């Protein structure tokens, strides 16, 4: 509205008077044609309208004309600068918050003890490492106790959990196996991550010595050190990782940006088009309830190949119990099955359920604690079995509410179920599998 009216009036006066500069001015106006600029522009419009009158006078008096042109040129420069600024800002209306170089005097000084507690990151050159040491032998024990339930005894990874060892010389293959050994460029990262973020569900509980030992053991699992190796803050930085020179800094700007910043093709961009792959052939899209969210074209015809970018299903997850005792409340059981999703990563239940990183849970009610064949329980559960303790509703409720508190030393890394109704539901669900 305002802008089109304005450009018209500008055309009328500017063209005869300023000639060529009109083009520049209208370009500037187009760029400035944003809501944000409206106020400024209408005031300029008034100024320009005044200039109209002056311009008419200038038509009569040639000597004044030059002055008007100069005046208009100054306005054009003004407008262009404003247009540029507006364009740069776009529709982002936030003005920068004020900055005070002297500060606001907020917050309080951090104490040395506080910094020491939180600032535990370790840099590639070893800065940040606490003093300590640990050997492969000790590491193997700690690893078996605290890590192997997910990462496997030899760091080879259980089910879908991360693999930490092997994969050497696969980085240039189709599906590279990226492990601590084959891929990680710095030993500091292993120490830092294990110390700070593992074991999963019990982070920040490892001592410095335990961490040195575990890292030594992970190196050993990767055949990078011998079995008599000891790692300490002293020999730490002398250790070079296998893939230390394997990384380059983001090279997209050189590799891609210039090549991909050309005017795009709009017509006849290629001679023909063919479909080369269809997602419906890979029946991996999750479904909701009984009704599929996606439209499924002939899934039956699907060739049996699986996705290769991501890890695939380990099998056990799909099994759900098919016989529920009559007494069970179906709604509660259904709710319990939902809660059981939290457990599925580690436990299977139902026909043919196998042990995963946790034991299978078939027939749990009345089952002896720690009694599933072939599952390697923690000492705590082995002891419970020897004492002849049996799972019932009361015990299970206490265990699932706070696993670590109920069974000191359990290797089940699960924080517990907080909501009472979830607890009741999941226990009801597990009961249906107890027949």
């Amino acid at each position: 509205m305002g802008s089109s009216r304005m450009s018209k009036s500008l055309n009328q006066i500017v063209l005869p008077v300023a000639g060529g500069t009109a083009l520049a001015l209208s370009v500037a106006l187009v760029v400035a044609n944003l809501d944000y600029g409206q106020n400024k522009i209408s005031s300029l419009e008034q100024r320009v309208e005044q200039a109209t009158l002056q311009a008419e006078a200038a038509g009569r008096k040639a000597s004044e004309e030059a002055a008007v042109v100069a005046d208009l040129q100054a306005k054009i420069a003004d407008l262009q600068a404003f247009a540029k600024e507006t364009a740069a800002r776009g529709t982002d209306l936030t003005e920068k918050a004020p900055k005070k170089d002297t500060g606001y005097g907020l917050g309080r000084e951090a104490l040395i003890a506080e910094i020491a507690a939180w600032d535990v990151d370790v840099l590639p050159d070893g800065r940040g490492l606490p003093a300590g040491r640990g050997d492969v032998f000790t590491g193997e024990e700690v690893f078996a106790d605290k890590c192997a339930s997910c990462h496997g005894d030899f760091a080879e990874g259980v089910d879908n959990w991360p693999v930490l060892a092997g994969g050497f010389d696969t980085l240039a293959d189709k599906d590279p196996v990226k492990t601590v050994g084959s891929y990680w460029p710095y030993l500091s990262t292993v120490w830092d991550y294990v110390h700070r973020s593992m074991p999963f569900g019990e982070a920040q509980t490892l001592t410095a010595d335990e961490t040195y030992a575990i890292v030594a053991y992970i190196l050993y699992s990767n055949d990078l050190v011998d079995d008599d190796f000891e790692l300490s803050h002293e020999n730490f930085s002398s250790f070079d990782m296998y893939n230390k020179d394997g990384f380059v800094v983001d090279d997209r700007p050189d590799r891609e940006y210039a090549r991909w910043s050309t005017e795009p093709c709009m017509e006849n961009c290629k001679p023909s088009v063919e479909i080369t792959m269809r997602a419906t052939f890979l029946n991996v899209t999750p479904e909701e309830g009984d009704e599929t969210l996606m439209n499924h074209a002939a899934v039956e015809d699907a060739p049996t190949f699986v996705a290769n970018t991501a890890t695939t299903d380990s099998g056990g997850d799909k099994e759900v119990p098919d016989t529920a005792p009559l007494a069970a409340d179906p709604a509660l059981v259904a709710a319990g099955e939902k809660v059981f999703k939290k457990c599925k990563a580690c436990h299977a239940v139902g026909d043919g359920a196998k042990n995963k990183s946790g034991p299978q849970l078939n027939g749990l009610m009345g089952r002896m604690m720690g009694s599933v064949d072939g599952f390697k329980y923690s000492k705590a559960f082995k002891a419970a079995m020897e004492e002849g303790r049996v799972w019932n509703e009361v015990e299970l409720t206490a265990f699932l509410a706070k696993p670590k508190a109920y069974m000191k030393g359990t290797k089940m890394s699960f924080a517990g179920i907080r909501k009472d109704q979830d607890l009741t539901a999941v226990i009801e669900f597990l009961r249906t599998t107890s027949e």
Partner: protein
Amino acid sequence: MDSKMKTSRRAFLKGSVAIAGGSVAASAGAMEADPLITEVQDWATATGVGVDETPYGLPISFEKDVVRRNVEWLTASPISSINFTPIHALDGTITPQGCAFERHHSGAIELRKEDFRLMINGLVDKPLVFSYQDLERFPRENHVYFCECAANTGMEWAGAQLNGAQFTHGMIHNMEYSGVPLRTLLTEAGLGAAGDLKDKWVYVEGADASSNGRSIPMEKALDDVLVAFKANGEALRMEHGYPVRLVVPGWEGNMWIKWLRRIEVADAAVESREETSKYTDVYEDGTARKWTWVMDAKSVITSPSPQMPINHSRGPMVVSGLAWSGHGKITRVDVSKDGGITWEKARLGRQGDSKALTRFYLDTEWNGEPMLLQSRAMDETGYVQPTKQQLRESRGENSVYHNNCIQTWFVDENGVVENVEVS
């Protein structure tokens, strides 16, 4: 309404039916009157729900399918996993917090404002600890930014895999953040001790069990990074880092540390697990790229898409989608219906915000012909969203992250939509 208007309107309606003639008149005659119109409905006679019923509202039950979803087989445990924003069912650009994707490395935690502490230490003049209340006393700004996980579309490198825009492109959300510029907090602690800022870094970490630390170059830290405590006007949700998260505009979501607890000024990158083992990509020859922070320009058609088949009759159709760039504003989006042979310019819903989602529309017709729908974004640097072939030629097929390829949806004659790859 005055009587003159009424009569003229009736005359107009009569006239138009007469002109339309045969088919309309005949079908109108054969059609039963719509009971939704002719009969008084329950909701038109009884009263509805009172204002004391819903202190905090959720979407109406009919929209219960518009929720985040996850893909179970992707990860070993839902505690270290990701879910996807239902972008197929949303319009406009702002993502409601309740359906904005989540990615945690050790689960979402409940951290009270009273228990929140933010430490700034390292190469600063005075290491500081802030409470939540302290943060609210610094001058703050509001900005809309997209947050995209670097792994968004990552499952599609090897080929078309997941059938739905939610699953192929839903690791993204777009919110209006309120927060304090990081530069303000760094200035508060004083950067004199850091000396020349050119080669300095800030290392940021969260309070959760994963701690998820990342190194950010000082130049970015002093530019547009925000320490945010509100999103879309209300407190952050637990799953997005309540009470305080970092907002790193245009850069990969993993750097947007949630439950922010510490900012360290350092003279080197930490090379944490999240910037070595993860968030790096292997090229064909086995070398890997690191520090690939910026999210390049990208777009996707959200409707029609596999979860949004065309379920209307032939005629007018709206193709709708989203475009974004970590380098700045989206300046143009083109749409192709024939798999990239011909393209037409789409209409941008609104002038693009920098580093925020832009909605685009193509107002077109569909007459039952099969289509291969694609969209192609351009940003203010002139960068044009590449095809999957271009990406594979440049990087090989072993990348996980930063797949910003042009997406193709196949629409068949029944309006059913499928995720496909084309030559």
